[in-house]
């Protein structure tokens, strides 16, 4: 059952990823991206990483994609098709991507991944929360603080950039 779902999700991800970057209708591309992200959230649910999945849903699907759709709504017209990509460039890039993919898959399949064989740890929200704010080993208070500063800076920056000045 789970295996089946995984395959469906994986297929969704791959298919819609490709459609995202090839679609000539920009809003559709955004929707395909949404599907990719939803499928990713599905994979997280499947792995029983519920909190992460919900974060993915809220931030990515409910936040980033909404932002992108907003940007599209403000910058594109409905009958506006993106110009077709340069054939040579596209072919070259596709070749590069395929070579890179091949190289990495070759490396991945040639390597034997072995886990540390430990039992699964606690992934409930409490464990995540205390780990986020702990100072000790496997405590993430520093990155947490850095991220919060980053978000603040991004917020201020975004407002300043998008602000309309009087003389504009």
């Amino acid at each position, binding site marked *: 059952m789970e295996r089946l779902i995984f395959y469906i999700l994986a297929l969704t991800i791959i298919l819609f990823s490709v459609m995202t970057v090839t679609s000539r209708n920009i809003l559709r591309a955004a929707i395909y991206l949404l599907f990719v992200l939803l499928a990713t959230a599905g994979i997280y649910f499947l792995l029983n990483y519920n909190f992460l999945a919900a974060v993915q849903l809220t931030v990515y699907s409910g936040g980033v994609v909404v932002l992108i759709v907003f940007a599209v*709504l403000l910058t594109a017209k409905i009958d506006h098709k993106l110009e077709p990509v340069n054939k040579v460039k596209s072919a070259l890039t596709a070749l590069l991507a395929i070579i890179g993919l091949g190289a990495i898959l070759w490396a991945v399949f040639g390597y034997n991944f072995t886990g540390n064989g430990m039992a699964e740890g606690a992934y409930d929200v409490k464990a995540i929360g205390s780990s986020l704010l702990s100072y000790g080993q496997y405590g993430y208070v520093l990155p947490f603080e850095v991220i919060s500063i980053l978000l603040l800076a991004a917020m201020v920056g975004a407002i300043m950039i998008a602000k309309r000045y009087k003389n504009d």
Partner: protein
Amino acid sequence: MKEPLDLTPLTQSIHDYLLSYLSPFWTTTVEWVIIGVLLIAFVALSVMGLVYIERKVAAFFQLRLGPNRVGKWGLLQTLADFLKLLMKEHITSKNADKFLFNLAPFIIVIASFLAIGAIPFALGLQAMDINIGLFYITAASSIGVLGILIGGWAGNNKYSLIGALRSGAQVVSYEISAVLSLLTIVVLSGSLQLSTIIESQSDGWWIFKGHLPVFIAFIMFLIAGTAETNRGPFDLAEAESELTAGFHTEYSGIKFAMFFLAEYVNLFIIAAVGATVFLGGWMPFHIGNWAAFNEVMNYIPPVIWFFFKVGFVIGLIMWFKWTFPRLRIDQLLVLEWKYLLPINLVNLIVVAFIAMMGWYF
């Protein structure tokens, strides 16, 4: 003391029964189908009920009679409307992006259904009780806004586009306040799991236990929830005088009905979450140590309690709609970012302090 009616044995017996005939894979599949069918049936019925109630409430507020022709007291009016919508022609405007145009209603409805799956209707009657239930509901319902945006854009109509942008901005903004006000209870009960949150209210609902801050949070939640469902007085996306019907102007027939459905499902979800988190979900109403009174209350089954509370919250929201005048878009955003958000943040800090000091009952 009588234990509240637990429906877990019922679901468990169904599960065991299925397992005895089918492989685990098929058991799960069949269970999902059953749940899906039940939910759809429930949603369809309750939305019909809600539409009827809303029309009656509106009529009551406006000193009219409301629907009273089809069936006894107009009870079948919504069914008739539904049939009419089902049979209407599907119109798609010129140059519309057909794929997205057809997709949008589904996104909204699916988002609503995803969210409703985690609502605990009664003890043991919950499709899924995951450990981040509350967060899951907000996450799932946050996808719905995409349907609004896409639907408004794909119709190739500038009014619907403006309506979509407005509702999009509105929903995204007010979602923050809604989540923040829910977080106060998460802080107090120490869990995101809905069953645990309900469990933590067995000795009193949070709205009674949590002093003023929780009451403020409840008010905030009601305001934010009303805005999130695009209902009056925050329904300016559908301000008829300015934007005709907002983002779903171009929709007709059953697709329009789906937007309509989603709107009422969202209303139900907001009310259900509010009732669960602040008003104790299916927990019966108890007063201190009035043992006899409490015992009587215990005899009312949890399902009834739950729907009673949901009805109460829905009633409040309908009351708002027909009482307050509609806001302007800038007033709406100012209300959120300059008033509700700061109040919520401060309130959350206060509640965190209360929780830390253990100052709640």
